[in-house]
């Protein structure tokens, strides 16, 4: 399993303030914090301390067991493609990219994420193919300042 970094004593002072925290200083299990970790090149989820489920997107109440005690875990960003499609008619901000592939990745730690699949010939897409998570280098300047992760073939 991935390294657990939910213990706040391991967070450096430099990182402090970059995340949305509760009154005790713990990094809250939120979408915003998920993307702030992405900005550091880390794919993070939360692990439920009651049932052990790895949950992404992070949230405070476990969808599996209703527990509300979790800690952040880093995912290795490897998994298999569950399904995909090729978008020809995109929303306007993606028009320059079309046609492009998007799909749902089953991460090895057991949670799932959707995203764009890059560095792949569209004809080579296969259900079950191994993919890696990577991150865009550029950050949006206005809300939502969420760095985009994407998927690419493992080999």
């Amino acid at each position: 399993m991935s390294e657990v970094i939910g213990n706040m004593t391991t967070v450096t002072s430099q990182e402090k303030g970059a995340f949305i925290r509760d009154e005790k200083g713990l990094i809250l299990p939120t979408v915003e914090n998920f993307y702030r970790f992405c900005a550091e090149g880390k794919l993070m989820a939360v692990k439920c301390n009651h049932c052990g489920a790895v949950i992404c997107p992070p949230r405070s109440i476990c969808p599996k067991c209703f527990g509300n005690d979790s800690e952040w875990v880093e995912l290795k960003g490897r998994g298999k493609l569950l399904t995909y499609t090729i978008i020809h008619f995109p929303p306007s901000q993606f028009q320059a990219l079309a046609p492009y592939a998007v799909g749902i990745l089953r991460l090895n730690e057991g949670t799932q994420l959707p995203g764009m699949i890059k560095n792949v010939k569209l004809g080579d897409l296969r259900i079950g193919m191994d993919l890696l998570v990577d991150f865009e280098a550029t950050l949006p300047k206005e809300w939502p300042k969420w760095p985009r992760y994407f998927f690419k073939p493992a080999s």
Partner: protein
Amino acid sequence: MGISKFGVREGLYTRELFAEAAREAFDRCPNLNPKRDVQGLFVGMMSESYEHQAHVAPLFLDWIGLLPIPAFRTEGACASSSVALRVALFSIASGMYDVVLVGGVEKMTHLSTTGVTEILAMASDFPFEQWHGISFPGIFGMMAVDHMHRYGTTEEQLAKVAVKNHEHGVLNPKAHFQKRIRVEDVLSSTPVAWPLKLYDCCPRSDGAACLVITSPKVARKFTDTPVDIVGSGQAQDTLGLFERDNFSGMKVTRLAAQQAYKMANVKPEDIDVAEVHDCFTIAEIMAYEDLGFCGPGEGGKLIDEGVTQLGGKIPVNTSGGLKAKGHPVGATGAAQACEIYLQLTNQADRRQVSGAEVGLTENVGGSASTGVVHIYRRGD
């Protein structure tokens, strides 16, 4: 019931479209004095963004001349007005009201396809789906790829759904399209989200639908041909498709159908006619399976065998469905109920299912994050 003409209704906005549907509902119900009898309005509409208009419940109430009774707006994406119908049923079942109006409306065609695509996409998960360029057709495209991979469903089978619903639409003067298409037309149409092509997708449409719902004890005061709503079910699932265990079916439809069948004490084989949510052709194939018209993975075979076309054992989407009748999203649930009313009261003209006694509607919102099923029986 009343239903506006669906399609491109240039220069008419939701308030006028809704009034058009309500006017027909009043006209069809001559013993109803709307000012005196109607106690509440329940209306479904998906988005304020199309017309830059929120707070529509009082607006529509005003435009149908019924101020100041209470009006309620529900939002469940493409299932908005089926949710309105359920809330209206609660109001009747609680004993609070005896006569209410239920309706739905959307105005979409004044915007570009891109503009509509972006507003529709708001019903998917913003930080994880929209943010990564996943459109609504993209979500159903991913379901279709999974269904094809798992069960061997083909693009031809998907195309046959569109061909059938266009065939039915020709028989519905209020449908957006009255035009036959062939399987080849679907297969050669522009790709939207592979394997879904333009003719696998419902159009953007303008339209409204409206129903008068009463308690059983007063129904006969207003009509000689009542239809009883005998089953109602609803379920929710994750907003994001990606969080689910299975992309080849709609859990909300299965759960809502179980509730509705149980309440109505009927089985799938008792259904004479159904309106299902064919926003994309794959959604109708999955609806067959999730409603129990066939087993899991057998939806493609069902369309091949012609079971769901007019003249088949369970005609589905005799109105033309979302595909040919059109899909002004907020209006769809109410419009499905209107079609079943016409069928069960023998008023469906050239598309009449002979002797239909039990009908069903299935309406889903978003990536099937909301699912609503109703079952109807011809009144005795």
